[in-house]
């Protein structure tokens, strides 16, 4: 399978430890790689792509090590963050050159297909120097897809893209993920990571801080009470009954409604509707205030 496996991988430059003992498995579908600036996301992606050797540990892609293994490039496509295209080439020429470098049996067909996937057919015969940032990103993706790799690595793929291009790119990655490819992408835009991938890997200061579905990660943070905003027909009365429940550690009446802190998420979520019904209070809105990827991420980075 096209799984990426890391086992106790570290990478250092002299005294600087960029990646510190990371063990993780990335399977099919779309996985988001998150972390503050300088946490090591680019280093990790480059190691997986075979451009950097791990200083320690084992890193395999689809069962084979990626370092010093040119064969890995048949399996992996990398879309780096830096502008790594020859601006004097046309889009089609660039993708075709990549296809030829891969020694594909039919580079022309592969090129056309890849360009079709990223919807750059109209602009393919223009020089890349005339492309906008979003178009450059897409042509880089086409070049990374031209050999139809089961593993696709993208470093900040949404950089510089306008809203429509973002939506298209998200749809594209979603489709590719559904096809069974293993897609790992790094991004700072958490709203989009949230929508695109349920699975995330969070890197903080070179270490793996958390992995998996972010909602599940949030539920694991039991030492932090869950925070909810509730709007009802009688916030005060509901607040009074809620504070009587052991699952609830705090209620606060704010301008936007009743803020509730629940130490026992499971109990609270089952009790709320019951309490409201028994008191004859209408529930208009219940919003988890800190279950978004952004909150989860903030908690992970804090510690």
């Amino acid at each position: 399978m096209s799984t990426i496996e890391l086992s106790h991988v570290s990478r250092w430059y002299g005294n600087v430890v960029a990646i510190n003992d990371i063990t993780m498995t990335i399977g099919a579908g779309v996985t988001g790689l998150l972390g503050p600036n300088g946490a090591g996301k680019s280093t990790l992606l480059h190691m997986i792509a075979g451009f950097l050797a791990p200083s320690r540990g084992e890193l395999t892609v689809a069962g084979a090590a990626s370092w010093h293994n040119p064969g890995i490039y048949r399996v992996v496509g990398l879309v780096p963050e830096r502008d790594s295209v020859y601006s004097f080439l046309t889009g089609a020429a660039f993708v075709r050159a990549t296809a030829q470098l891969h020694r594909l049996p039919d580079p022309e067909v592969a090129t056309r297909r890849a360009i079709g996937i990223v919807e750059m057919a109209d602009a393919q015969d223009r020089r890349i120097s005339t492309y906008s940032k979003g178009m450059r990103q897409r042509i880089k993706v086409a070049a990374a897809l031209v050999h139809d790799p089961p593993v696709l690595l993208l470093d900040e793929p949404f950089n510089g893209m306008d809203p429509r291009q973002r939506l298209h790119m998200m749809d594209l990655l979603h489709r590719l993920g559904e096809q069974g490819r293993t897609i790992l992408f790094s991004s700072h835009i958490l709203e989009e990571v949230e929508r695109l991938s349920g699975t995330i890997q969070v890197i903080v200061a070179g270490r793996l801080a958390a992995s998996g579905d972010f909602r599940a990660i949030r539920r694991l943070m039991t030492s932090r009470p869950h925070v909810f905003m509730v709007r009802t027909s009688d916030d005060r009365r509901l607040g009074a009954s809620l504070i009587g429940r052991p699952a609830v550690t705090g209620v606060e009446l704010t301008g936007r409604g009743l803020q509730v802190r629940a130490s026992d998420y499971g109990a609270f979520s089952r009790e709320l509707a019951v309490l409201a019904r028994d008191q004859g209070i209408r529930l208009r809105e219940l919003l988890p205030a800190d279950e978004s990827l952004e909150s989860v991420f903030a908690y992970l980075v804090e510690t």
Partner: protein
Amino acid sequence: MTVRPPGWDAGPVSDSRVIETAVGEPGVTGTSVIETQALAKRYPRGVTALDGLTVAFAPGITGLIGANGAGKSTLIKILLGLIPPTSGRASVLGRDAAASAERIRTLTGYMPEHDCLPPDVTGTEFVTHLGRMSGLPATAAKERAAESLRHVGLHEERYRLIGTYSTGMKQRVKLAQALVGDPRLLLLDEPTTGLDPAGRRAMLDLIARIGGEFGISIVVSSHLLGEVERICDHVVALERGGLLRADTMTSFTRVSQVLAVEVDEGMQELAAELTRRGLVSRPDERALLVRLEGDATYDLIRDVIAELGLPLNRLEQRRRRVEELFRDDQAASDDRAPGGAA
């Protein structure tokens, strides 16, 4: 609404000329911070950056959105007097952009998108120097530079060379130099570029504070619609050099008649029971969308969940989102309630 502190300079020249805003509501000239009429910018070789744009920007925080090449940067540059328009008119804070460009530039601050900081001066020196370039006398420039840097949250770092700054600090310096001349209007181009999530949140909070507490109108050009929704009062969307839509944020994100219910387990049970009680619903990923037929709907949902003992995670009225403007497919419209037309 922005509150102007007392002693504030007299507002823009008011006359009774009325200009149509894009949504057809007439607005008085005096209350718009920016207005354009048939503004166009054409380059040789047939490239049209702006094609007869007519729009008014209200005071407060406005998000300027649009595809790459839609004309956002061109508009900002014309408003700042950096490039001349081919035809049409623009006015900023009541002054004509062509006739009073210099006056406008005393009243506006600009935070460009690209890297524009020299690496070998300190933050303080840089902002002070630009304060003098804005026309402040030497002492005032120093003082205002110190204040601006404090407001954007740069403390001891300001005495270090800019080349040693992180991306977040550099963005803050860019914002500080835009504020140093005490502008009445700020033009921010992609202010959160390159910032990590914590940095983005800090920058957005800062911008919201400036627009709210400082009484400065702001135009934020951004690709990130989530952040636009979070801090902007109004939205102006451009497309291919012209206006796509201009409206208040509440109008863009108005609620629909659809309730989204999320339970951690038992969604199918819930749907079945609701159907039995006469409520139509359809699933949408983790949520169950239920058509809102009145207040009774809320109570019914509450009761069913209580009876079934399901863990309720979320209950909210679905809102439209700004990004729907850019969705090509109609199916994305959340307003399409289950079981029929909205």
